[in-house]
């Protein structure tokens, strides 16, 4: 499940449409979702972005996907409509910096960004500028592995256009024009992650139906399952005796014992 934290409905409109997302949560933040993707509308400003990201992080099932702060940004020189993969986010008032993951793409710029507390008239020289990214980075960096974190910005205004010309309609139009490029970027960022299987085959899922494994226990179960598959590629599951009274911790202990008794084939 990929998570997009975005400030405004107008920025999100074409993503919601493209991925057929439906509104599933109204409060405290609007969440649009399908099985593989969700967009959370934070509202404007870094504090809102921080709060919305913290809220989104409560669902630990989503931590394996991409976490993207997407929205419009200003830049002194880049043309309006440019898509930028942000390499460094600096919070203007504190000077704190974070480094989102960057995926190089031939049609996508790579640039640093400064997050300001309010709209600015004078564009910074060497970075793009916005009002949300530092809030997102401050929250997400604590919880999510760095390779999953991206800040993706669409340039909506620059020194020649000025911020005065930025309308809701223009925001929508810019996203619409770039939607396939955004999609390609996300697909290639996802490729970087796809190492670990995140779910069990159906037969294994069925075996543990009715048991309540915590997120950590599920993770441990997956690791043990992967170890078992590596050691006994021909077999589906270790022959351990389970009974009705076994709790998840007992199941894990039995599995661990069984697996340590196997000899690796090197």
């Amino acid at each position, binding site marked *: 499940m990929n998570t997009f934290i975005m400030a405004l409905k107008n920025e999100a409109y074409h993503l919601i449409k493209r991925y057929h997302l439906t509104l599933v949560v109204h409060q405290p933040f609007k969440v649009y979702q399908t099985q593989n993707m969700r967009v959370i509308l934070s509202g404007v400003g870094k504090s809102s972005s921080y709060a919305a990201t913290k809220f989104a992080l409560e669902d630990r099932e989503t931590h394996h996907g991409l976490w993207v702060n997407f929205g419009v940004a200003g830049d002194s020189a880049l043309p309006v409509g440019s898509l930028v993969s942000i390499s460094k986010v600096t919070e203007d008032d504190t000077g704190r910096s974070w480094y989102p993951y960057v995926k190089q793409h031939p049609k996508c710029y790579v640039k640093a960004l400064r997050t300001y507390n309010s709209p600015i008239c004078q564009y910074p020289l060497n970075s793009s500028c916005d009002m949300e990214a530092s809030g997102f980075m401050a929250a997400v960096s604590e919880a999510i592995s760095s390779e999953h974190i991206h800040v993706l910005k669409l340039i909506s205004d620059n020194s020649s256009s000025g911020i005065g010309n930025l309308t809701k309609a223009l925001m929508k139009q810019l996203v619409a024009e770039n939607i396939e490029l955004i999609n390609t970027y996300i697909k290639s960022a996802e490729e970087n992650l796809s190492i670990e299987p995140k779910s069990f085959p159906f037969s294994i899922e069925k075996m543990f139906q009715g048991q309540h494994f915590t997120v950590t226990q599920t993770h441990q179960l997956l690791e043990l399952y992967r170890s078992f598959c590596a050691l006994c590629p021909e077999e589906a599951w270790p022959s351990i005796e389970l009974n009705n009274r076994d709790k998840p911790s007992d199941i894990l202990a039995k599995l661990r014992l069984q697996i340590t008794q196997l*000899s690796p084939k090197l």
Partner: protein
Amino acid sequence: MYSIIYVEESVRDMPQTIEILNRYQNAAIVDCSHYGELFNRRKQNFRTQKKEPTLIIARKENKRILPIPGEYAIDAKHNFYFSHMLNCLYDCRYCFLQGMFRSASHVIFVNYSDFKTDLTSHIENTEDSICFYSGYDCDSLALDPITDFTRNFIPLFKPYQHAFLELRTKSTQIRNLLTMEPLPNIICAFSLSPNEIVGKYEAKTPSLNARLAAISSLRDAGWNIALRFDPIIFVDDFYTVYKQFFHQIYAALGSRSIHSITLGSFRLPKIFHKNMKRLYPDEPLLINGLSLTNGQIAYEENLEKKLISWCENTLKNLDSVTPVYIQRSTV
């Protein structure tokens, strides 16, 4: 090779940095204030990053020369290591760097003159033999065309007969060395494994034959060669595989002298093993057949002794002259 390069502001204008950046004209350059901001972040995944490592160019502020872990020494009185780089181009499944570092980014410390000042002061502080190991946190030669490590550091050892430098490598990047005057106190130490192990556990490294060819060229040019059989891995059919391997090496290298041989079986500090197992739960090499031995995760003690003494005897039968050093598990 690198599409993103992070550069510490303090080294941005150093000639070494500029030279490296010139090689990667298409890379995105990102300023950072300290490499640790990226390299030491708490939440990152070594395995994922290894697919497409980034480069960080940085300054090593202090602790540039460190005493070596006990087991690593050979025959010098004083033994130190230093790292002009962190991490490696290659992807050996048993490599302890995967368990030691959080990030798979390659870090190059370009303040060579600081390293050289420290090396000189260590060397001049003693009249006893002193050895420096450069391949502890990286492969000494794998990135030599980019770092120019050999050209920068080897000449420093020329006036000091009591000071030695060991280059530890699996690489065939020997072009710089072949253009330099060979020095008797530089040891080109090649890590070698049987082809079966190279194919299975040493991803992206040169083949055994390519390494043997590099060794021959260096020896013909007059460089000191050492052989490192570490880690010895207890594969199926171990005795056949390793017997054939040792014979292959001596058939290729002939009888000319070798500086030294070291032998060590597969072992890892407990915490590194734990981290690596978390990264690779599906890697049989890391899963079973190991136990806590002398504070390290290693083969069970009797097995380890048996493997090592068999290797030692086999090697001594092939070569009774070269000294063989055993590197055992220590805490």
